[in-house]
């Protein structure tokens, strides 16, 4: 686990003068499942294409097993790619698609047959050998793409949003399958997604990207519990991000009062961003809470209610299993370990206030909108991006 397989150092890419990757540095360990996570257009595919050899960076170095990859074309790299839309060969059947990489390598026919059968088993596609690609479902095409990439036994597999086109149920199944394949083969997976849940549940490490820059690298727990800036806090899960001041180690002031916390290492009186996850806020009677406010929105989510509370003009999102209705006054309590303090960044003030939350926007723009409809719509569409 400890040895490095790929190292990107200060890699910069520009298309037509527009910077797409800005001094990206990333070390990938042999055998790990690492995920590039970020919104559309942040440079995930471009990063993957650098590893595959399809994009040559303008600046910076890429090393693979200690050797520089400068000028090494894709066909001479020991990596395989699963493309965003599979890119299967339309003129070949399932078997020949999978055998493609081995035929190029002039693998003897007996060994070829055995290895193709082996990966077909792995992706549960036995009996589909003679099928035409056009006669396969999306999930099956996906499996062929995985088998085709694995059969050449690459040292590293690059996966560009491989599950994006599948429906939710199939996506969950494939997540488990991919993870199992990665574990059993022990090869490095570099996985791209813009679905944070997928990233958190599958990865050993997550690389959060935005605007061509890496925002944070860490384990799923790290990026969720200890986000480095407001962008990461907002992109991964729901967050209340409040303007605050660090009074001293273990004491922080926000929302008009002082809170005990567990973070430290800041200057005295240093302005900070404070992150509090909606599930960490405890709801109670107004006089019992550390803060109190008026409920302006409440949406039933199945396991819990998602409640918007106006506390002195700042709207918090809290999650609670108690049934709370709009117009109620409630109190909020947060424990010291539920408060996460971050340094100010360029993203400060851009995220984390729920006053422009979509439910309210809908209601403002649609006069005939009722609260019941809001709840029904919210619960029905799964609200999944």
């Amino acid at each position, binding site marked *: 686990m400890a040895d490095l397989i790929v190292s990107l150092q200060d890699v910069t890419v520009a298309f037509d003068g527009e910077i797409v990757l800005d001094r990206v540095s990333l070390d990938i360990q042999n055998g790990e499942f690492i995920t590039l996570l970020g919104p559309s257009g942040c440079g995930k595919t471009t990063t993957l294409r650098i590893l595959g050899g399809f994009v040559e960076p303008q600046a910076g170095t890429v090393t693979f097993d200690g050797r520089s990859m400068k000028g090494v074309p894709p066909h001479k790299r020991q990596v395989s790619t699963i493309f965003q*839309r599979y890119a299967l060969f339309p003129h070949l059947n399932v078997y020949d698609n999978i055998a493609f990489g081995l035929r190029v390598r002039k693998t003897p026919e007996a060994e070829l047959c055995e290895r193709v059968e082996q990966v077909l088993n792995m992706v549960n596609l036995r009996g589909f050998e003679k099928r035409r690609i056009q006669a396969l479902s999306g999930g099956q095409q996906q499996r062929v793409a995985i088998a085709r990439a694995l059969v050449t036994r690459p040292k590293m597999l690059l996966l560009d949003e491989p599950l994006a086109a599948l429906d939710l149920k199939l996506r969950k199944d494939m997540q488990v399958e991919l993870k199992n394949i990665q574990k059993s083969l022990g090869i490095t997976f570099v996985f791209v997604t813009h679905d944070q849940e997928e990233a958190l549940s599958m990865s050993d490490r997550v690389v959060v990207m935005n605007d061509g820059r890496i925002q944070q690298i860490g384990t799923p727990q790290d990026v969720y519990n200890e986000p480095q800036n407001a962008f990461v806090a907002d992109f991964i899960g729901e967050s209340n991000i409040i303007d605050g001041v660090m009074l001293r180690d273990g004491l922080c002031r926000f929302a008009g009062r002082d809170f005990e916390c567990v973070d430290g290492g800041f200057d005295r009186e240093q302005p900070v961003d404070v992150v509090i996850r909606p599930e960490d806020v405890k709801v109670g009677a107004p006089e019992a809470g550390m803060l109190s406010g008026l409920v302006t929105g409440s949406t039933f989510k199945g396991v819990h209610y998602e409640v918007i509370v106006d506390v002195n003009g700042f709207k918090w999102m809290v999650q609670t299993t108690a049934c709370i209705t709009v117009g109620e006054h409630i109190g909020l309590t947060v424990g010291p370990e539920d408060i996460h303090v971050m340094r100010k960044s360029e993203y400060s003030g851009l995220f984390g206030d729920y006053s422009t939350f979509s439910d309210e926007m809908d209601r403002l723009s649609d006069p005939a909108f009722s609260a019941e409809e809001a709840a029904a719509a919210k619960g029905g569409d799964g609200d999944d991006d």
Partner: protein
Amino acid sequence: MTNPRALRQKLVAAPYLVWAAVFIVVPLAMVAYYAFTDPAGNFTLSNFHEIAGFSHTFILSIWLGLLSTIICLLISYPLAYLITRCSPKTQRLLMVLVMLPMWINLLLRTYALMKLLEDTGFINELLSLLHLPPVHLINTEGAVVAGMVYNFIPYMILPIYNVMTRIETPVLEASRDLGCNGFQTFRRVVFPLSIPGIVSGVTMVFVPSVSTFYISSKLGGSITLVGDIIEYTFNSEANYNTGATMSLILMGMILLCMLVMNQFTGGDEEAILV
């Protein structure tokens, strides 16, 4: 079958069916009728015996048609491939250039070629200006093939270009990713995927080349092809029976060629319609 939707579809197709019957089925039936009758209208096979005398014409027609088709293919395939490699803007410009000659009347184009190839034509004038010996070009088989290639080459470039642009970039990248260099990618992916275009291009050049009469009579001098004879028997001799028989045999041969060609596409591709 009697639901209103199916009925409406039939009604929509009706004008086309009438058109097809009047302009395709009836003429075909008439060709067949003339081929199997004598001028008095009695059934006979003598037309076919008569045609045996023209077997060398058939062979020459097919040979020249084949030659021009092969030349067209050899020029068009690399050309189409190079065009797909250009930027979208350049591609559009080049395709307009490819199709430009098709906007000019076939007769005009053939006359222009005649003026180029004549003994006192443009090429020989140029040679004499350079004090080089003249070459005899017009009224040779070479001139006929040149005329066919010149006139029909857009019909080869177009379908090949079409299938090539439909090959998605990620598919080519997948091939490189799996270990193919540029040439191997061409051989294993680009070429197999462009076969339907080749088949339709070959058909669209071979068929008019084999049956042309104008090109051979203007550029070939004494060289006569099947098309010339069909034209002559109908127009000058008013011998519908011989002409119809030749047409029938020509059609049969073309059909045979197309069936053979379609074997290459597995039959289910839109080979002829690209």
